[in-house]
């Protein structure tokens, strides 16, 4: 076979294109993986995406569609996941909100169904569909240098109207709600602000820079510490539980005393 015949072989074009694609893909993956992690991860991330795709098809495609393009046909609904980013997947799946146990106004927090490795694979697959916020790194949500008081001010301005000033959560319309923040981790809080899950608006870095997010995380951690200078906090739910307390325990004690004092001595 001459070189000419090789060039003229009918499979040549296809092979060249395939070869070029492979070279570009591997090269691109190598370049990007240098930025992200070490070289062995290159091969791993390709398999990770594939592993994620398998998990996706088993657990998520029923609602979100085979291509993650979303379904909204009246009988079932799942939003498109193209471009939501790894952070959204990590938040929804690691907090157990996804997969949904049953259709509801809102996905409740529950023990996660997937292992951390599986969540990583799912996140890698969804991230591969389109550009979106990545999972934040530890130093992004590290609040150790943040300003606590500024965090409080930001929290009251941006968060308290739904999550309550003490982070205890609050009701929204039609059975929806802003959940309590008492068991949210710094990573989850950061991801939630970044991606705006469910009814929550999102706070991208353009409107709320990283330091402000860290300050808010610092304030939520302060709320979580449960520090209550005044004694039992009655759930920090405000005057409602205070009223319940005075009508039950409080008045109960005084009425018991009144009955005791008013009792006839025999």
């Amino acid at each position, binding site marked *: 076979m001459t070189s000419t015949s090789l060039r003229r072989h009918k499979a040549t074009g296809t092979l060249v294109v395939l070869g070029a694609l492979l070279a570009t893909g591997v090269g691109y993956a190598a370049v990007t993986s240098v930025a992200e992690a070490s070289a062995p991860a290159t091969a791993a991330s390709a398999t990770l995406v594939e592993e994620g795709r398998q998990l996706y098809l088993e657990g998520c495609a029923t609602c979100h569609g085979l291509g993650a393009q979303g379904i909204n046909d009246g009988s079932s609904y799942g939003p498109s996941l193209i471009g939501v980013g790894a952070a959204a997947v990590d938040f929804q799946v690691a907090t157990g909100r996804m997969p949904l146990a049953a259709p509801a106004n809102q996905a409740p927090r529950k023990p996660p169904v997937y292992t951390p490795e599986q969540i990583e694979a799912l996140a890698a697959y969804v991230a591969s569909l389109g550009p979106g916020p990545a999972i934040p790194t530890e130093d992004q949500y590290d609040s150790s240098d943040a300003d606590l008081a500024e965090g409080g001010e930001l929290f009251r301005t941006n968060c308290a109207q739904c999550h309550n000033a003490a982070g205890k959560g609050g009701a929204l319309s039609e059975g929806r709600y802003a959940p309590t923040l008492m068991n949210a981790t710094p990573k989850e809080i950061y991801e939630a602000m970044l991606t705006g899950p469910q009814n929550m608006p999102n706070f991208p870095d353009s409107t709320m820079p990283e330091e402000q997010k860290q300050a808010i995380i610092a304030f939520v951690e302060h709320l979580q510490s449960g520090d209550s*200078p005044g004694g039992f906090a009655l759930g920090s739910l405000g005057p409602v539980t205070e009223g319940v307390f005075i009508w039950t325990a409080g008045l109960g004690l005084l009425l018991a005393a009144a009955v005791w004092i008013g009792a006839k001595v025999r």
Partner: protein
Amino acid sequence: MSIIVNEAGKAISRADQRMPISSLLKANMRKIFPDHWSFMLGEIALYSFIILMLTGVYLTVWFKPSMAEIIYAGSYEPLVGIHMSEAYASTLDISFEVRGGLLIRQIHHWAALFFMAAMIVHMFRIFFTGAFRKPRELNWVIGASMFLIVLLEGFAGYSLPDDLLSGVGVRIVAGIVEAIPVVGTYLMFFIFGGEFPGNDFISRLYTFHVLLMPGILLALIGIHLVLIFYHKHTQYPGAGRTNTNVVGYPLFPVYVAKAGGFFFVVFGVTTLIAALVTINPVWNYGPYVPDQVTAGSQPDWYIGFLDGMLRAMPNWETVIGSYTISWNIFLPGVVMPGILTFALILYPFIEGWITGDEREHHILDRPRNRPVRTGIGAAVIAFYGILVINGANDVIAITFNLSINQLIWFTRIGIFVVPPLVFWATHRFCIGLQRRDREKLLHGYESGEVLRLPHGEFIEIHKPISDEEKAVILAKEAIAPLPAPPETDENGVATPGLRGKRLRARLSRLYFGDDVATPTPAEIAEAEHHAHELHDHEVAELESAGKDVPANLP
């Protein structure tokens, strides 16, 4: 020793020559008061007021009623460097810097909740037992006025710290004032010294809270107590108790000891609660900023029913030209509270007019013997309860996984459906109890002793009730409903005011028409004649079978 006694005696006699102390004491220290635990509910309110005055004075020493903006530099780290009013900053200082300040603040606030709760329970005791009837109508009016003043007083105190929670409440009040047609906006500007929030309302509210309203309350409490003294205390029916006597113990020493002790019980319980349980953690809420709000913003519980009305109201508005009447705020915020206030204050006169009762009453009614009044009271509790629930609907929704919209619809429908049902059920229940009373009086109570007759029949032995119980049941007054007015008098002249009189007769029939008659003395004598636990033929049967006839037969 004798020198001290002599000197003390001289001092007293010197004072007595100038003021009639000993004769006053002599006349009043042995005054008799009846004994019952429910007569102490008002005392809880009175003692809470004393605790509020004592702790309030302590708080005024450090509280700064000023809306001047400062930067917080105290010891509560999460707020350091935040802009806030002096009022809020000084509340934080009272909580974190002043020795005992947080405890005193919490005693003050818990005592306020006790004050309102005790007043409500006390008022229902007065209501259900008919203690507001002649000659005590005026004291009811005074008590109801105090209740309304304390409602405002409590809200003022809740608002003074100028925290985010109370600021939202003040904003709602500003909105309610604005909703009054025509004058609303002017009135709001007048109260707040300009646009909301302005720089004035904390200092103005402060004057009302620490000076004006406590002063009025003090005066009214004085009159309230003097009237109790003057009218003598009512008593529950019982053996030996009549409308013209008071059976009980003397003020000194019995009630001086009991009431004095109870004051310390109330103070002790309030302090214990304040030491253990947080109330109004203002540091959680942050300073009031008009563009901030916290989920679960609530008023203190006693304002909750007003908030509940506001939350339940559909969004009705009328636009006339460029002018809007906000019925959605005006009706639940102004009109309904006004109607409820009048109904509360005027109830004794309304009932008096309906029943045509002009006699003095010193023996209390048993609630079952006035089914309509008891039914009204129960319906009011249901009405109030639904509104309180709706006032807390967001907290209930998040706590019990409910929909806030469903809770609002429950309120909108329930507020019209539930109170009438409660009225009807309570009314029936009272009449059932009246019938049981009559039964007990005529046939005794079911003793639980079951006897088997020789021919196999089982019968339960009824025994006569005690004389005390008889006296309680017999104390019920039989009141006939007013007769329907004649359309014309004997000369054929139409009765003046026929419509009003007809309405009155109809209402009177509602009040007393279902009354179960108390047995007459003749009926009781007749029943006693037949009051064998066993019928004659049953006794004969036992005797012929050679069995023992129970010894307790009359």
